[in-house]
């Protein structure tokens, strides 16, 4: 449980998510790493170059850390959840509280995670669809509605000449492993307590 919760702290060092954009002219794809406290380019000038390309289709520039409340809130939430997990873990270890709190933490974290994903997706929708009406290149779908350049939340999508791949990154995987470990902790706790009762 404690290890699982501490793995969340990996998010402070490693990106949660990664979006890569490859195209014929970009054999070395451009990429952005999404950290809980901001977005950084995979290579030094990737963000500048993505913004440079996006201006043709009227997308807003990639937000700086101070332009989105999420980037100041997420680190606090993650740190808080990690600490809460450690406390629950310690109390559980010393038998002060039931193993069921482990599951509680997991469920709470899952809800927060889903909310986070929902928020992230909303941002992607806005980022990809809320375009400058004076955009240089305006592409419409066959039904006449403006094309959205929303990157996929997870997986692969073709956007004009770009192949866009969006996947969790190291920090994200550490979080998933951590959360799984808390489930394991819950299961172990349950097994032990069942043995005791029999």
């Amino acid at each position, binding site marked *: 449980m404690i290890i699982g919760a501490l793995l969340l702290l990996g998010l402070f060092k490693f990106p949660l998510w990664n979006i890569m954009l490859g195209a014929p002219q970009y054999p*070395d794809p451009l990429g952005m790493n999404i950290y809980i406290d901001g977005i950084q380019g995979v290579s030094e*000038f990737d963000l*500048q*170059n993505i913004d*440079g390309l996006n201006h*043709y289709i009227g997308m807003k520039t990639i937000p700086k850390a101070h332009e989105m409340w999420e980037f100041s809130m997420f680190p606090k939430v993650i740190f808080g959840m990690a600490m809460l997990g450690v406390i629950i873990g310690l109390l559980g270890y010393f038998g002060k509280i039931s193993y069921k709190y482990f599951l509680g933490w997991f469920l709470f974290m899952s809800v927060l995670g889903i909310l986070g994903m929902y928020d992230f997706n909303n941002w992607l929708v806005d980022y990809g669809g809320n375009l400058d009406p004076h955009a*240089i290149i305006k592409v419409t779908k066959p039904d006449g509605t403006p094309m959205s350049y929303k990157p996929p939340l997870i997986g692969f999508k073709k956007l004009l000449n770009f192949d866009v791949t969006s996947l969790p990154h190291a920090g994200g995987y550490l979080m998933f492993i951590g959360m799984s470990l808390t489930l394991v902790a819950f299961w172990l706790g349950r097994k032990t307590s069942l043995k005791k009762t029999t």
Partner: protein
Amino acid sequence: MKNLIKSTLTVLGVLVAFTSCNNSGNSGKKSGALASNVAEKVYVAPGEYDSHYAFLSGGYSGNVTVYGLPSGRMFKEIPVFSQFPTSGYGYSEETKPMLNTSHGFIPWGDAHHPDISQSKGELDGRWLFINENNTPRIARLSLTTFETEEIIEVPNSAGNHSSSFVTENTEYVVAGTRFSVPIPQRDMPIKDYKGNFKGALSFISVDPEEGHMDIKFQILMPGFNYDLSHPGRGKSHGWFFFTTYNTEEASTLLEVNASQNDKDFIAAINWKKIEEYVNNGGGTMMPANYAHNVYDEETHTATSTMKKEVRVVNPAEVPGAVYFIPTPKSPHGCDVDPSGEYIVGNGKLSANLTVHSFTKMLDAIENEKFAGEAYGIPILNFEDVLAGVVEQPGLGPLHTEFDGKGNAYTTFFISSEVVKWKLGTWEVVDRKPTYYSVGHLTIPGGNSGKPQGKYMFAMNKITKDRYLPTGPEMEHSAQLYDISGDKMELLLDFPTHGEPHYAAAMEAGIIKAQSQKIYKLADNKHPYAAKSDDDTKVVREGKEVHIYMTTIRSHFSPDNIEGVKVGDKVYFHVTNLEQDFDVPHGFAVIGQNNSELLVMPGQTKTSVWEPKQVGVWPFYCTDFCSALHQEMQGYIRVSAADSDTPIKWSLGEDIE
């Protein structure tokens, strides 16, 4: 699928090879050895890389061309000694100082012998040096930016031909004089050449960190012609060897008068001894006037400084530093094998190839076995120093390179062939024709202690029927051979640009990894750089108008400019804001008596325009930079000289 394409193309390649072989008649049949796998050996599939870089001198183009081996594809022309309108080199305000000399601005040069910098006797891929023969200069090119970074003029020299070869730790790049001259230059009868003219051998120190060049000393040698040179290496590190001809000291009809002596000399210079002499205050500072031009990567600007003195050394005053080794018949190439033991004198009018022994030379010097002296310089006995003779290998030997496996390869201009022979036994083991009249040859790492085998290419002076004819003037031709087996195998013909006297080549790894993609805008210290659209402005200073302009896909900022008048001198300072690999922008304005600018990401370049007519004149981006390249344009309004149109500029809105 990839394999299918590859094999199909290979088959096509082979068919083409055979077809062209049949079409080229006699010369093709002579090459004969086109085995069925030859096409595969030079085929580099689309998107794949060559294994070697080759830097070929552009000869009278004044520049350097970059090729890939084994494909023979040209990747880039790097301007060095000649103006290059493609990029604006020698036209832009920043690069004009690169071509400054004691004779003023010179738009052209004759580039000869490139050499890659070395550490511990191996190529380190940091810099490329190359000499200019006509107005003696040495240039240093960066092999991270592939740009010319520095040019130093060599005073007291003429026909800067036995240059620009580096010692095994790039302590020095060395430049010798082919045409001896009065030193110092003065008004005197030409017929008084003998005994009065001198040949300067210049040792130019190279700063180990930045590469900056400085003439440490010049040895004022007798008035012979110092034709080519190479450094000692390994055991002979600390020595430098120069071939000489015209030891007759003729000043007219040299083709006859300089061919009379049975033997000329190889001058053996113990530069470590002279360095020590100079470090202890030896030699004299002599008044001189020569340009030292340095390009700064951060200001993107070159500065030219005139240097006013140079240290000269009289070789007769440094005992034990200089010796003459008799070598038959006007030797041309002077080549030292990877171990440093053998010094090959390619006597161009001799039937045999002479090889001297460094060990024997030291022995003769120690025992003071001298045959005489010339101008106070001891002459050794030919027989005492001789290591061996390659008997009757061909006609007109010029240059020799080594494969590091005990073999030497010598070019023969007159019999038009490359001959492979063994060091030590001096036996000829193979010969292959070249097309035609080969000058230099290059083995990657050839001038180093560690040649990188596998390939050798011959650079020929005469092309004739090798390619589709292009009128009287043809590019020269080169042939690539595989030298990994016992016998040389002709792989490829490829045209070369200008006259590639010599080339330096090396395995691609080091250079490929360090090749720079962009210049960082944050590091740009150009005094007229505009690093964002907010920095753009137009400033009038009397008759000069400075336009601080930026480019980014796909606009100039500003793109509307007013207030310029006829008679003004307009400076377009163009900064490319891009920080993306291979996204240059170009700049040209109508009626400009100048070249275009090609501005790399993060770089600032300046073009001067002196408008002579009233009107509204467009400028535009010359490099198809983006989908909206055709929209990348602007207007500059030119008013009458006595008008009072105020200076104004804008982007995206009308000038108010």
